């Protein structure tokens, strides 16, 4: 019994099977013994016959016969015992199978309980359906808002188309010769508007679609110049100074109109802006002749200068210009011109060294940034004072569009 104790893995059924198998082994050993005896008796019988002792031989064979009958009985017992052992083993297997089925059923019931049963599943499916319907409504609402946005884009496209159509009407106005200068201004302005083709709220940009290789200068301050208030002293042709300012980028190489000095070589030009701007550079085109201006003095935010005071006062900055037919871009010290509301340009002399009495300039423009926050009140006040009818129209547009379109209105007033 050395190994009998503490054997948790061995069950009572295992011990029963062991007992039956041990009985089987004993029967096997007994059968082997019978076979040995039977063989022995056969040998004895043969020896007796050799010696002529038939009686002893017969006796040995009888004993052999008896042993063989024992063997047959043992065979039956062995078969029965092995059948019983197999049945017990199979019953154990069946027991394990049943236990497995029982465990599986138990786990399945537990899972069903956790799911909350059939009613809970139905309730959950209902809630899921409701949530999906709600989501569809939300999606449809968002789609509606998107369609509103599409309508806005369509309206913008309509405005652009209208401007294009207005542009095509320009040739009809050209033949009016008596008011040549004013017509010219109007033509330039509207042509620009036609080429723009975009929302007027974006006043920081100027676009044109000419074939010029040079890309458009996005920071050109064109819309912000108050052309009607430009004043040039000693100009030979009236309003010539404003005329060269109103040339568009596409017209920058046109020889006419041109600003020329009258009595002597000096020119003094006052340029106000419609709001506050941050000046970056001055663009100017002159020539390679002695008529090209040489020294340019710029005064910031002063509207009270004449030739005497301009010569005496210290300018905000002084520039030396070049003799060239190309556009000169003269950068300014930005720190000095951060809050520009007006500029006074004093062209003091030219390259004639006193021999040439005429100074000529064919193109003038400014680069910088416009600060939109300061634009609207100025336009508002200006229009209110100038033209009440325009004020009403502007108000309506402003409310509808949400963008300021005072620039063109101001221009119209001037014309």
């Amino acid at each position: 019994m050395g190994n009998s104790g503490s054997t948790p893995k061995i069950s009572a059924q295992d011990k029963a099977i062991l007992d039956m198998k041990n009985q089987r082994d004993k029967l096997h050993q007994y059968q082997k013994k019978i076979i040995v005896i039977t063989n022995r008796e056969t040998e004895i019988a043969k020896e007796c016959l050799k010696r002529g002792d038939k009686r002893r031989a017969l006796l040995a064979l009888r004993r052999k016969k008896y042993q063989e009958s024992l063997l047959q009985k043992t065979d039956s017992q062995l078969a029965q015992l092995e059948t019983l052992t197999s049945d017990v083993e199979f019953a154990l297997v069946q027991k394990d199978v049943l236990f497995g089925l029982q465990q599986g059923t138990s786990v399945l019931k537990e899972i069903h309980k956790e799911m909350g049963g059939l009613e809970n599943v139905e309730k959950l499916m209902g809630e899921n359906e409701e949530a999906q319907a709600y989501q569809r409504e939300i999606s449809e609402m968002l789609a509606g808002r998107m369609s509103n946005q599409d309508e806005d884009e369509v309206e913008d496209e309509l405005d652009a188309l209208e401007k294009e159509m207005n542009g095509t009407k320009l040739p009809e106005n050209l033949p009016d010769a008596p008011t040549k200068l004013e017509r010219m201004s109007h033509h330039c302005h509207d042509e620009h508007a036609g080429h723009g083709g975009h929302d007027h709220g974006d006043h920081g940009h100027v676009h044109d679609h000419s074939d010029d290789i040079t890309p458009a200068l996005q920071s050109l301050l064109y819309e912000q110049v108050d052309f009607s208030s430009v004043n040039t002293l000693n100009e030979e042709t009236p309003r010539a100074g404003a005329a060269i300012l109103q040339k568009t980028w596409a017209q920058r190489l046109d020889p006419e109109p041109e600003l020329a000095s009258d009595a002597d070589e000096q020119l003094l030009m006052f340029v106000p802006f419609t709001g506050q701007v941050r000046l970056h550079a001055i663009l100017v085109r002159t020539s390679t002749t002695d008529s090209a201006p040489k020294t340019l003095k710029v005064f910031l935010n002063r509207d009270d200068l004449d030739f005497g005071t301009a010569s005496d006062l210290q300018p905000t900055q002084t520039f030396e210009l070049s003799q060239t037919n190309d556009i000169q871009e003269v950068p300014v010290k930005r720190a000095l011109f951060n809050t520009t509301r007006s500029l006074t340009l004093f062209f003091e002399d030219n390259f004639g060294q006193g021999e040439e009495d005429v100074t000529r300039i064919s193109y003038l423009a400014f680069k910088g940034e416009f600060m939109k926050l300061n634009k609207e009140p100025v336009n508002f006040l200006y229009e209110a004072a100038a033209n009440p009818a325009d004020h009403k129209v502007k108000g309506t547009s402003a409310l509808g569009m949400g963008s300021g379109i005072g620039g063109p209105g101001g221009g119209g007033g001037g014309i």
Partner: protein
Amino acid sequence: MAAIATTPYKFPPHYSFPPFFTLQPVAATRASQLASWSAHIQAYCRHHRRFQLSLIDALDTDLFWNRKLGKRLALRDARDVVNYMCGAEGGHRAEWVDGDKKKGGGDGEAAQAWIYWRRPEEWASLIEGWVDATGQKNTVLTLYELTESDATASQEFHGMDAELLQKSLQVLVKRGRAQVFGSEDSLGVKFF
């Protein structure tokens, strides 16, 4: 108990070399000699399916006696060979029975040793492999049927010494792969 061999045992070449039967004084030569004797004894016992060896009886057999040569290993030298086989140097290929190891006088009577031409651990793996191959896991088997039944007639462990069988099964018990149970004279084993 010894099975009748179908083919005769093939003696190693140095069995015909007279100095083989005298333990050598030089250490390197002696180590080589002991290893050769160990191999010879293991092969001889495997061939004749002997699991234990009685030195007194074995001295008179052709294991230790080459009659053609007239040379035989002395008892003292035979004991040295077995001691070598018991140690780590000899690969634990032998084990004295009942602690006879290096015993002094009166040694002739009890000089018995297991010859492990296959160690208990190796027998254990063999038996476990057969049980697995024949689908008898989780089945109760008697120790008798493992070594004597027709079912294992083709296996190496058929006819194995009963005590050695128990040593091997104890290896499996320690590994948790089997459990031996039952009364003293009718032991059984269940494999897991």
